[in-house]
């Protein structure tokens, strides 16, 4: 049975590495090159980009949950639930105070509030770009250049988001 921390790390890998970078980002860049006239393919066009953006809507919610659940999942306070600390036999109130101390120190040394707020900001920026892109895709006018510009801006924003997600630690540790 994986721990909360292991599950969070696995989810981040799936969302950030497997989906955001390898699938979504790659597909968006292929679409951009298609709009630039460098690639032709029946699977690259306005309609396929629209479908791709629908995927973003559901995945961006997952990313939001991922960011907000980091503190709970990766806090070193969980170490008190595992061996060897579990068997030490601390008095409950002492253990709670130790847990709080370890957690607060970890938060401070990691600058966790900044880490989380930066990631949330990047997500918000990406959502704004995504909405603009979806709006322009819905337009009936020929907005090729406009789509291209917004798509480029969106790619920049999801890259920043991906970088922000990568800055979260990759294991439970006492800092």
């Amino acid at each position, binding site marked *: 049975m994986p721990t909360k921390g*292991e599950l969070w790390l696995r989810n981040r*890998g*799936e969302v950030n*590495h*497997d*989906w955001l*970078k*390898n*699938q979504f*980002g*790659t*597909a968006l*860049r*292929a*679409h951009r*090159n*298609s709009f630039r*006239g*460098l*690639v*032709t*393919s*029946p*699977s*690259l066009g306005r309609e396929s980009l629209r479908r791709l953006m629908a995927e973003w809507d559901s995945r961006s919610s997952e990313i939001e949950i991922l960011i907000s659940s980091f503190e709970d999942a990766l806090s070193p306070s969980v170490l008190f639930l595992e061996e060897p600390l579990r068997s030490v036999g601390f008095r409950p109130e002492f253990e709670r105070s130790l847990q709080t101390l370890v957690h607060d120190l970890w938060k401070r040394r990691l600058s966790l509030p900044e880490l989380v707020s930066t990631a949330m900001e990047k997500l918000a920026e990406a959502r704004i770009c995504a909405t603009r892109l979806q709006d322009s895709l819905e337009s009936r006018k020929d907005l090729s250049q406009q789509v291209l510009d917004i798509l*480029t801006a969106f*790619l*920049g924003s999801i*890259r920043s988001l*991906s970088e922000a997600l*990568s800055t979260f630690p990759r294991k439970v540790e006492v800092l």
Partner: protein
Amino acid sequence: MSSIDPPLILVIDDLFGRVCKDGGNPERENLCGQFLLEDVSGDTAASTSRQKVLAPVARAVFWRGQTPARSGVGDSIENDLEGVITRTRKGWASSSIERWALVLVDLCFYTGLVTRESNARVKGMPEGRPDDDNPQRYFGLRVLQALQQELPDLPVAVLSSKSRDEVSREFSLLGAVGFVPRDIEDAPDVLQDFLWWHGLIEDGRGELVGRSKPLLRVLRAARRVAGTQRNVLIRGERGSGKELVARYINRTFSGKGLRPFVVVNSAILTPDLFASELFGIERGVATGVDARAGLLRAAHGGDLFLDEIRDMVPQAQAGILRVLEDRRVAPVGGSVAYPVEARFLSATNEDIEQLASSGAFRSDLLDRLREGGSIYLPRLRDRLEDIPLLTEHFVREAEAANPRAMRSEIDPDTIALLQSHDWPGNIRELKSVLFEAVADYPDVEHLVPVHIRLRHKGSSSDFQASQDLPAEDPSLDALLQKLMNFRIDQLSPESLAGRYSQIRAGFGGFMVRSLRAALEATRRSTVHAPEGEISIHAAARFLTGNESLTAHQAADLVKRIHAFSEGCDVDIAGDPILKEAVETALHLRPRNRKVSRD
């Protein structure tokens, strides 16, 4: 590779290399769309794709690096290091097929079972095991290590969406030339830059023909210096293509626009002429003299190719050094100096450092001429694998230049013959031999060995010496002359001390080669062996000039030569003709091992 084909790369990646059960790979299509790659993997994912990249940066073969390559729910995916090496070697070890210009390796390869859930996330991809995503245990690093050990001169780069920082030391230690992030905005430009700088790419124009590693390395070195304005020294034997390399550098500078390319034969820069030739001359300096800009000003904004710099007289050396320092030239008889911004591409086939240290060439000039480094051209005998392509190229060129010539098929035996020669005159000699063959036999459909006239055998120094001799077979004459002049008895005992084993090996080699030549010369066709049978009896008579030599005496002679050849550089056991001769001699009469006590 034709002149328009982009370079060929190998991409080793679990996601982009896999084939889904339905035969496709949408992620690969998107990657090709992002990096502008033409998928030439030859699998169903490539053949079912309807995507077209209009101006591909590269042609890519994708390889999963895992088994099975085609996967769906229920399959267990395992990494396959041996398969990776085998596939990579296939496109690297032989120049009979196009070589990888660059290999890109992913870092994280997911293994384990393909479950319904993992398949729903990404078709054909497994769940993954905890260690797959551990930077210390990335399979991609193991691939890099194995490639470094097995194919050390292969250019390999990492292609990953993982963090570069986590593995930067590891991939450097494992010989990777760099890291291409997968999630970059200007992916095609970055890949193109990597190919330009690190890739082993053929000359797209087909002027420097071949795909042997030594030649591809020269082209890479030339591309690297092409983007700078620094002077370069090009070194190589006569006929190895130094001027072609200089032209390649000239035309690949920044890859855009034409730049002047001026060729100067250093031998024409005599003390009387060098100044007017190089710097130009004003009108009226002497009666009837017209103004001339000179070669240096003609090269302004481009490249000046100084061929065979060792032939340059000291006055010319001083003049060129001054131009390199001042970047200005004043024509003879003129008072105005003109700016000259030209790169000097110099060539030599000599040990120019030796000439500089002996004072025969200015060392300060040498330093300036090689400030951007030296490029060493391989000898043709060191890139014999290029002979099929070169032969095809020169034969077609000769046919195009000869209205009478038919298009001829090049016989494999002709290639074998050409590859057995050591080409002391390098590419120029090969070209000349093939042009001669086409000129002599324009009315045949097959170019076969009898059409080929090889002019000489032996080392390049024999070739040089033989060029001065008027005899019909110059290399043999030169060799005989050298042998007759070789007075070992006149050498001082000090100079021979401790070197008898080398001298003996030298003579042993000479005698074995003489025997081999005699065996070839006396070979006779028979009903059973139309290609000819060797005869040690005939060969021994031929060698000694003694027609009354018996078969047993011939066998003794062969055995003595065999015994004397110990330590020489001829591999008798590896040469079918010599091996047969020795075995025949031993069979005819066992060697008398008695030691005479006389």
